[in-house]
C-alpha cells in the first residue's frame, strides 16, 4: 500500500514541476500548466502525509 502511495506522491510532485518546463519549451500554455500544478499539489498533500512521517519515525534510520 505504501509503495502505491509513494508512486502517487511522486506523480503529484512531477505534475507540480514538469508542466513549467513544458511551458518553457513552448509545448503547453501557462493556463494548463497552472491547472496541472494544482492537481499535483492536491495529489501530494493527499498522499504524502500517509507515508512520509511514518517513514521518518522508524528507528532504523542510521
Amino acid at each position: 500500500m505504501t509503495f502505491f502511495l509513494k508512486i502517487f506522491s511522486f506523480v503529484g510532485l512531477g505534475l507540480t514541476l514538469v508542466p513549467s518546463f513544458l511551458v518553457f519549451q513552448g509545448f503547453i500554455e501557462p493556463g494548463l500548466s497552472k491547472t496541472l500544478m494544482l492537481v499535483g499539489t492536491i495529489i501530494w498533500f493527499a498522499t504524502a502525509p500517509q507515508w512520509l512521517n511514518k517513514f521518518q519515525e522508524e528507528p532504523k534510520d542510521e
Partner: protein
Amino acid sequence: MQKKQGLKDRLDAINEYEQEPIPQSKLKSWKSFVGTYAGEHTAGTEFVLGPLFVAHGASAMSLVTGLLVGNILAVLSWAFFTGKISVKTRLTLYHQIKKIAGSKFTLVYNLVNAGLFCFLAGAMIAVSATAVGLPFNMEMPTLTDVFPNSIGWVATVFVVGTITTIVAMFGFTQVSKFANVAAPWMIMIFIAAAVGVLPRLGINSISDFWPVAETTIWTGEPLIGQSKFTFWHVMFFAWFCNMAMHIGMADMSLLRYAKKWQYGFSSASGVFLGHYIAWIASGILYSLFLLESDNSLVFAPGPIAYEAAGIAGAICVVIAGWTTANPTLYRAGLAIQSINPKWKTWKVTLFVGLFTTIAACFPALVMRLLEFVALYGLILMPVGAIIFVDIYVLPRIGLRSNYAELKNISFNPAVAWTWFITLAVCLLLNLFIGIEIFFLGLPGWFIAVGGYIVCSRIFQKPTAHKMATPTPIPTTVNAN
C-alpha cells in the same frame, strides 16, 4: 466538556524537555533534521529576500557566487558551532544560558529573544496573508507602508495568525511533521514558478538565461532609494541571515535532538534549496513583476506567486509563511517559558501567538525584512559566542564554565558586560566607521569572544573550596 478537558490534558502532557537534557530514546534521525531544515528555510522569507536582492541591485555574478560561498559558511557554522555544542549539552539555548549567566540575565535575554522571534514570525504571517487575501480582492501593502492599510488586511492576518498559533501549541513534533510533508513540494513550486515565467522575460533557451539574468533580472542597478549590494553584501547576508540560529546557538533547541553533531550539516538542505534556489527563483518572479507592472511599489508575494503559478503558487506562499512562523513561534514560546518553567508550553505559545499576530498587522515588518534579519542575528550572536567560549575556552585557561550555576548566582556580570560591550562597539563601528549592518557580525563575534574572556578574568572569583572537589556538571550529557 469531556472533549474540552481531553484537549487540555493532551496539551499539558506535551513534554519538549525544555528544562532537562533530551533522553537518548527521544533523539531524532538525520532525516528529521533534513526535512525540518528544508521546510524552515524554504519558507516565506524567501519570497521577500530574493526580491530584495533584485531591489538592491545585486549583479547576476555577485548573486550566484556570493550565495554559494555564504551558504557554505552557514552550513559549516551550523555543524561546527551549533551541532557540536548541542550534542555536548543536550539543552535548550535558554537553559544553557541560565547555567552560564544566571536567571536574571536569562530573563532579560529571553524577553529580547522572544520579541525578535515574534517579529520574524509576524513577518511570515503577513507574507501568508498576502496570499490568503487574494480571493477577497484585499488591498495589498506597498514598499512604503508602515501601518495596516485596511480592515481586510487586519482580519486576514488574524485568521492566519490564529491557525499558526494553534498548530504551534501542539509542539515541535507537529511542526516537524508538517514541514517534512510541505518541504519537497514547496521547492518544486519555487522552481516551477520561475521556470514557467522565463519566456515572459525573453528566455526561450538555456543559452538565453545568463545574458537576460545580467541585463534584465539582476541588473546591478538598485531601485530608487535602495543601497547597492556587492558580492560581499550577498555573501555576508547568506552567511549571517541565520546567525541567531547557528553562531547565536538558537538552534540548540532543535539540534539537541540530534544523535551526532554531524547532523548540523543537514542544514545544507535548507540553505541550498531555500537560500539559493528559492532566492534565485523569487528574484526572477519579482523582476518579471517589476517589468510588467512598470516598477509598481506593491510588494506582496501572494499575487506575484499567483500570477506565476496559479492557485498552487498562492497556496505555496501561505504554507511557506506558515512553516517559518510555526517553529519561530515555538522558539519564542520556549524563550518565554524558561522565565517560569511552571508555565505550560501551550499557554505561553498562545500568548506569544497573539502578540505576534498583532505585530504582523504592520507591513513595515516585511518591507524592512533584510535589515531586520541582519539586526536580529547581530543582537543574539554575542550570547552564542559566550556559550562557545564558556564550553571550549574557559576550562583551558583556568576559568570556570557555567559560572552562575557554580556560584549559585542569578546574574553573571561577565556575560552582561560582554553582550553590552559587543553591541555598543558594533553600533560605534556602524555610526563612525560606516560598516553596514550586514558585515558587523564578523567583527562582533571576535569582540564577544575576547570580551567574555577578559570579563570572566575580571569577574570570576576564586572558588578554592569547590575546585578542590570537582564534581561533574549534573545537566551536561556527553552523547558521543
